């Protein structure tokens, strides 16, 4: 090992605390990249593998009753590879010791052939005996939520008749990764289950022998999905077909997609910010660190080392620090990435997880960090190396300070000398001051962007559950009902108010942009389920015209007053043109609403309802539930309170975990910045501080002088940090906005305060560490060397 390399190793050892702090900052940046990109890749690959291995279909359609003969015609549609006809019905469940009515999605399992699409991944037990009328397989999450074991019983009302069912197996399916019940936003495994039953038994219950009520289709590669859907619709229409749809409108797939998109967006938004901030800080810190070595650099040059050799030496120094940081970051990122993958994997109930170890992720993180470190050192080296050695070996000439106020002003009477020193110091190094300010405010900013999701979610809950949808429950019907159903529901025990809702699937179009959504008819004066406009005011629907989600308006590129084309996908399928009357502030899905009377006229039907929103007297809930469980016409009951609870749980799990991880990394970065600033300031001013001690200043006074500047800068950096954080939050919010879910940007004062508290806490901690150094300052040795 050459003497220079020995120096390198010893320098690294001597500066270990700073080396560690810088490495942590780099590590923080690298780990966010590895974490975010890694977990997204892993989940994406898991999904691809799951879909592939278990034959997830491409197109789905629900029909009232289609004869089996139709299957051949479906198979002959160009582009169709495989067809899986089945009986699929929603039915109310009656589960022992469970008071709320639950909903079961019943799906038939073929008897004479193998399932070709949406195949089951059996977790326990076996498939039902085709001859049995009672045996079922349920999805694992549902079984777990109720503590069901093989052999457990529950009842269901199938086509008006209560039937006792026995669980003989638990399974998972690519079709129900994200299982959301009718009228719900979030999965609720207690109140929504998937129930697979033998074809003979289920078809028998619904009078569908030799027929099917649902079909899943796998497409050939390169097939046109739109074309297949159009032809499938044509085939199914005479049999009461509801418009077919592709994967992107399939609930489970769409939600999964949304969550993965969110992760992907996070991996594209936060890590670059982290990495950039880390790079910037490292650049700043290493620059100052190398500048401190000025005299040694001068000496090395004096005894004959070339500029290149000197530069190489210091480059090695910073690259080793960067490498340590990269090692930290890769390890932490891999660990956290696996944790997040596991977390999401559990949430989605994947049967297995594919952990992606994409090497390029590590290279991106590592490359950027190395580059940042090298540039930081390079900047400082250029300044030092260009000095003639004779000059470099002397301490830099005393910096030229200046009065910032006319000398005649008795400034000193107002402010004490230490404050004057600090202010002069700040004025003397405007660039350094600016960079330090920027660094600290960036730390505050990334904390704000890590923490703001909570505020945004609270706003979402407020608007969704307390401003817009204020009903206690939404009751969905198996079949469309006359609007008179309202009077029937009003008679149920405990019901205080009822509002009908008529939902019609439509395609809404403006220019070449088209979306398949539900159009809901709302009665005049709806008070439970209200329409909230973008200013968060409830609005009354006009006689004609649509109220559409503001997100949908944005997608279609329409404003209030513009006309949109609407294909009605039920009844007499007509295409009509309607004006947009209101844009709605909502956060889940995209939808359209209009006056119920106008919708009935448009559909050329008498007023009807697919569901009703009800408000229920809480003290009578149990009897209300009992009655519902005995109503064959009800296919599902969504409960707002439970939905909110589930939402909070899911949000807490996913978003809060991510926010916590990112906030933790941000705190580490904040500490790294402040600590390094303090340490380098100490090195830069060690002589001055020692002189002050010789003059009779106490240690505490000296420490105060050293830290005053840092404290001042830390506080000064907070307001720009908040602004920076708000800007980043806006970028995040904009990038995360999707058709399934989006948020309004809300950052509470508390979040700003918390971010600042963390940064100031990091600063205080650095101050404590530096205090030990100042107290250990060796006066003699500092003053003995150099003039």
């Amino acid at each position: 090992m050459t003497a220079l390399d020995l120096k390198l190793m010893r320098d690294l050892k001597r500066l270990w605390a700073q080396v560690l702090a810088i490495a942590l900052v780099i590590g923080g940046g690298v780990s966010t990249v590895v974490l975010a990109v890694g977990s997204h890749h892993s989940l994406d690959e898991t999904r691809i593998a799951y879909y592939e291995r278990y034959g997830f279909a491409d197109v789905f359609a629900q029909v009232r009753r289609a004869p089996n003969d139709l299957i051949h015609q479906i198979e002959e549609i160009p582009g169709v590879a495989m067809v899986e006809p089945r009986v699929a019905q929603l039915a109310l469940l009656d589960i022992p010791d469970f008071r709320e009515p639950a909903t079961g999605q019943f799906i038939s399992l073929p008897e004479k052939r193998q399932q070709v699409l949406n195949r089951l991944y059996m977790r326990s037990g076996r498939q039902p005996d085709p001859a049995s009328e009672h045996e079922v397989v349920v999805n694992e999450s549902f079984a777990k939520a109720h503590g069901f074991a093989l052999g457990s019983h529950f009842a269901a009302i199938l086509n008006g008749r209560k039937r006792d069912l026995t669980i003989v197996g638990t399974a998972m399916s690519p079709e129900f990764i994200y299982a959301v019940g009718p009228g719900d936003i979030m999965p609720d495994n207690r109140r929504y289950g998937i129930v697979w039953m033998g074809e003979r038994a289920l078809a028998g219950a619904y009078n569908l022998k030799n027929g099917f009520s649902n079909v899943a289709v796998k497409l050939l590669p390169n097939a046109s999905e739109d074309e297949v859907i159009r032809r499938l619709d044509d085939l199914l229409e005479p049999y009461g077909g509801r418009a077919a749809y592709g994967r992107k409108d399939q609930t489970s797939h769409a939600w999964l997609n949304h969550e993965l998109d969110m992760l992907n967006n996070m991996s594209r938004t936060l890590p670059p910010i982290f990495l950039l901030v880390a790079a910037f800080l490292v650049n700043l810190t290493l620059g100052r660190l190398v500048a401190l070595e000025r005299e040694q650099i001068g000496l090395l040059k004096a005894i004959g080392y070339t500029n290149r050799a000197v530069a190489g030496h210091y480059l090695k120094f910073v690259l080793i620090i960067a490498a340590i940081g990269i090692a930290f970051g890769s390890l932490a990122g891999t660990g956290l990435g696996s944790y997040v993958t596991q977390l999401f994997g559990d949430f989605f109930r994947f049967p297995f997880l594919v952990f992606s170890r994409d090497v390029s992720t590590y290279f991106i993180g590592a490359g950027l960090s190395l580059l940042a470190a090298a540039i930081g050192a390079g900047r400082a080296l250029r300044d030092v190396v260009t000095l003639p050695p004779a000059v470099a070996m002397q301490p830099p000439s005393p910096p030229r300070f200046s009065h910032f106020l006319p000398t005649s002003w008795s400034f000193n009477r107002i402010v004490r000398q230490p404050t004057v020193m600090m202010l002069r110091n700040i004025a003397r190094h405007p660039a350094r001051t600016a960079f330090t300010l920027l660094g600290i405010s960036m730390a505050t900013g990334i904390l704000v962007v890590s923490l703001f999701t909570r505020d945004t979610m609270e706003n979402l809950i407020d608007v969704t559950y307390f401003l817009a949808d204020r009903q206690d429950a939404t009751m969905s019907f198996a079949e469309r009902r006359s609007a008179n159903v309202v009077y029937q529901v009003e008679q149920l025990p405990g019901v205080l108010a009822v509002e009908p809702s008529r939902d019609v699937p439509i395609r809404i179009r403006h220019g070449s942009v088209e979306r398949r959504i539900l159009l809901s008819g709302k009665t005049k004066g709806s008070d439970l389920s209200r329409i909230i406009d973008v200013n968060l005011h409830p609005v009354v629907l006009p006689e004609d015209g649509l109220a559409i989600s503001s997100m949908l308006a944005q997608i279609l590129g329409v404003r209030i007053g513009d006309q949109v084309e609407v294909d009605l996908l039920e009844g007499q399928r007509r295409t009509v043109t309607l004006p947009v009357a209101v844009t709605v502030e909502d956060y889940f899905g995209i939808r359209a609403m209009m006056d119920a009377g106008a919708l009935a006229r448009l559909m050329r039907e008498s007023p009807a309802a697919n569901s009703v929103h009800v408000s229920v007297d809480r003290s009578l809930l149990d009897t209300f539930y009992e009655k519902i469980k005995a109503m064959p016409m009800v296919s599902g009951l969504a409960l707002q309170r439970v939905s909110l609870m589930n939402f909070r749980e899911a949000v807490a799990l996913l978003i809060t975990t991510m926010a916590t991880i990112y906030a933790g990394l941000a705190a580490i970065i904040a500490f790294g910045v402040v600590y390094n600033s303090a340490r380098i300031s100490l090195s830069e001013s060690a002589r001055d501080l020692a002189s002050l001690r010789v003059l009779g200043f106490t240690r505490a006074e000296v420490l105060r002088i050293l830290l005053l500047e840092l404290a001042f800068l830390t506080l000064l950096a907070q307001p720009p940090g908040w602004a920076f954080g708000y800007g980043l939050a806006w970028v995040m919010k904009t990038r995360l906005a999707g058709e399934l879910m989006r948020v309004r940007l809300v950052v509470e004062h508390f979040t700003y305060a918390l971010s600042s508290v963390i940064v100031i806490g990091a600063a205080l901690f650095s101050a404590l560490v530096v205090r030990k150094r100042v107290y250990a300052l060796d006066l003699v040795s500092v003053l003995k060397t150099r003039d």
Partner: protein
Amino acid sequence: MSETIFSARGLTKVYVSGEVEVRALAGLDLDISNGEMIVLLGPSGSGKSTLLNIMGGLDHATSGTFFFKDRDLTRLDDEALTFYRRDHVGFVFQFYNLLPSLTAFENVALVTEISKQPMRPDEALAMVGLKDRMHHFPAQLSGGEQQRVAIARAIAKRPEVLLCDEPTGALDSKTGIKVIEALLSVNEQLGTTTVIITHNAAIQSVADRVMHFADGRISNIQKNASRQKASEVTW
């Protein structure tokens, strides 16, 4: 007299610092022979340090010529000056300038690793009487010992020229003498041309010539008829 190793003609160095122009060397003429031991004397700001820096290739002259043998140092670029320093010059500074993170041995090795025909680091340290302290870090050595390490580092490459700036300035008399002994023995044993800036009268008495500086020029040259031996030196 042997051949001339340094020869300056009209050497000028002007420092510009802010609005002030400082004429550190004002057209200096000088000749130094190979193997000579020279002491530069003068008040602070008289130009001796500047001359030493230019002599050692640490700084550029503003005008004039300065020959090392047949090479005009004023015409060399940075790179060439680096190699000039590496191959021909050894430095000793007032404040030692040892690398604190390297031991005595390693500080010497720092130079021997990049020299053409160096002595072994332990050999160099033995010449200054520090063989038994060679694995100590600078912080574990006294001032005099640190300075002798600096001398060992300077001579380990067998330089033709040894340039010293106040080598005993930070030392007491006892340790100072040891440093002088080391410098003398190098000059005698290796025949190294040695140029020393010092106010130390003891060193002046062991030099061949003492050059007095004033206002950026040599005002007077005093030749010692006979050089004292190191053992005769009194502080």
